[in-house]
């Protein structure tokens, strides 16, 4: 065991506050990021719940809900290329939902092909629901939105002034600003009316023989048509939609401030802990200096201790984060602790501990072997 680690363990009560400060910072950062990522997953639900490899939409579209109509003729740009197994039309647009008992809500129409293996059909729709949706003006909503939309036992409502029938509900596709409304392309087109001009569509969804071919296709189309349409792989579009809303809502700034605050508190406590721990061993270090041991050796040990404080703090933070993620799930909140969040948190907090170590080095500079002589 290294001397730094051995000292850390021997004087664990002294170092505990520094370790806990790192843990606190790490939990705060990971949870903030995880909660927001979980929250903004909602914005990419239409993408994440379909099985298309490539999404083609209007030029520079940044999020799935911002797609403008594109000419149906764009189909010729896509179809017929090698390695594509299917290309489907997909309609995505906001609409006005009139509650049966009065009042309106914004909803988001998602009109797709309804074949059982269609790329655009939401994966959660059952075979029966897909069949029912082939009826004109039939829709499906998430069960969490039934109350919000005021759907009664009659299952009837109006979208953009046209009567619709709620033929079923699904689970787990919660909405943020506007409830998702699943229907056929035909129904969507009918409900949107002039808002979706004839011979236009919102997206084309392509499915390829392999995901690798999907990436190639997206790159090909992007290069060929850089001016008037946007092409993304499903993964890119999903991430893009989340990031767009993260920054559009300034939630990214909120994370930044909260994380900065957590880091600052953690850094100050860690620096103070390391400073006082080093000062407590000043006499032992002073004798090493008297013996001609270079001061940088002692500085390196303090930095090594700060690194271990960071690592131990992170090791304690991870189970806490997972526990809190589980707790959040029980109350219906999704904390997305993907590996990027966990790794990023570790890098930031261990970096913070090292910075704190650098601040603590002033206690090393104050050590003078002369002080050992009375």
């Amino acid at each position: 065991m290294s001397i730094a680690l051995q000292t850390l363990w021997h004087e664990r009560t002294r170092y505990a506050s520094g370790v806990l400060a790192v843990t606190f910072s790490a939990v705060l950062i990971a949870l903030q990021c995880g909660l927001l990522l979980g929250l903004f997953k909602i914005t990419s639900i239409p993408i994440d719940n379909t099985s298309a490899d490539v999404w083609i939409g209007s030029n520079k579209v940044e999020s799935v809900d911002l797609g403008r109509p594109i000419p149906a003729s764009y189909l010729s740009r896509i179809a017929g290329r090698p390695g594509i197994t299917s290309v489907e039309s997909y309609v995505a647009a906001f609409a006005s939902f009139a509650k049966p008992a009065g009042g309106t809500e914004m909803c988001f129409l998602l009109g797709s092909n309804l074949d059982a293996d269609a790329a655009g059909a939401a994966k959660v729709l059952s075979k029966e629901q897909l069949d029912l949706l082939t009826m004109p003006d039939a829709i499906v909503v998430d069960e969490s939105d039934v109350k919000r939309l005021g759907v009664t036992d009659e299952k009837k409502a109006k979208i953009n002034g046209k009567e619709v029938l709620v033929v079923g509900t699904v689970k787990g596709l919660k909405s943020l600003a506007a409830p998702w409304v699943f229907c056929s392309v035909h129904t969507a087109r009918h409900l949107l009316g002039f808002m979706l001009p004839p011979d236009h569509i919102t997206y084309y969804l392509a499915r390829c023989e392999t995901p690798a071919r999907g990436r190639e296709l997206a790159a090909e189309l992007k290069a060929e048509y850089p001016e008037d349409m946007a092409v993304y792989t499903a993964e890119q579009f999903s991430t893009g939609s989340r990031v767009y809303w993260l920054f559009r809502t300034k939630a990214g700034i909120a994370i930044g401030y909260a994380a900065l605050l957590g880091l600052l508190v953690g850094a100050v406590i860690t620096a103070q802990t390391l400073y006082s721990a080093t000062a407590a061993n000043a006499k032992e270090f002073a004798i090493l200096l008297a013996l001609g041991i270079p001061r940088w050796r002692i500085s390196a040990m303090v930095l090594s201790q700060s690194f271990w404080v960071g690592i131990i703090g992170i090791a304690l933070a991870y189970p806490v984060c997972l526990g809190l993620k589980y707790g959040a799930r029980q109350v219906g909140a999704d904390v997305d602790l993907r590996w990027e969040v966990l790794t990023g948190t570790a890098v930031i907090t261990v970096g913070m501990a090292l910075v704190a170590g650098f601040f603590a080095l002033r206690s090393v500079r104050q050590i003078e072997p002369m002080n050992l002589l009375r």
Partner: protein
Amino acid sequence: MMPWAASNVSPVLQGVSLMRTYGDGTARRNALQNVSVDLFPGQLVLLMGPSGSGKSTLLAALSGLLEPDSGQVLAADDDGRMRDVWQMTAREREAYRRRHTGFVFQGYNLFPALTARQQLELVLKWGENASGSEARRRADEVLDKLGLSANKNKKPAQLSGGEKQRVAIGRALVKNPTLVFADEPTSALDWENGQKVIELLRDAAHQRGAAVLCVSHDARLLPFVDVFYHLDDGRLERRTLPGA
């Protein structure tokens, strides 16, 4: 006959006309007034004097820890040439201390987290970049000679005061220094342990050939030493040892 008693033996350290004052105006105090002293290999020198007489200042100046106002501290380099410690750069002086000096203080100043063996290994690993196995071998060798074989794996909290001071002596001796400086090494110990400590310092001089300068108030150490100096009000005087 001790090696230093031979007429052709050169000193390993010479303090020449050392002056050092503290404070100014009416608070001005002369800690060292034109002090000259030679330290020879194989010699245990005792420096006594009342509190505030300048003993620690002299030890600090000779050991390269405190710069005198004037005078020279000439130390024998590896090739035998004498160089003024206070004309060296800070880095050279640090390297000089690393190669040639060992220190023992009244407080044992041992790392609470480390075992007796590790206290010694640390000096070799950090000071000489010694490998783990070499540091261990040399640390064990010194601890065995100091009668600490059974205590190698004990931490300071498990050792008595005398044992702790012996470990501190081991830390000073493990790099085989030519100079050992001890500041009140026995004052925190009972006489039985104090006697063991001064015997070990004498062995360091007589058996290892180090020049040992020991600062103390304790007159009971006199029978163990080779040379005895008295410092009073910054003036050094060599005294005859009782029975000599």
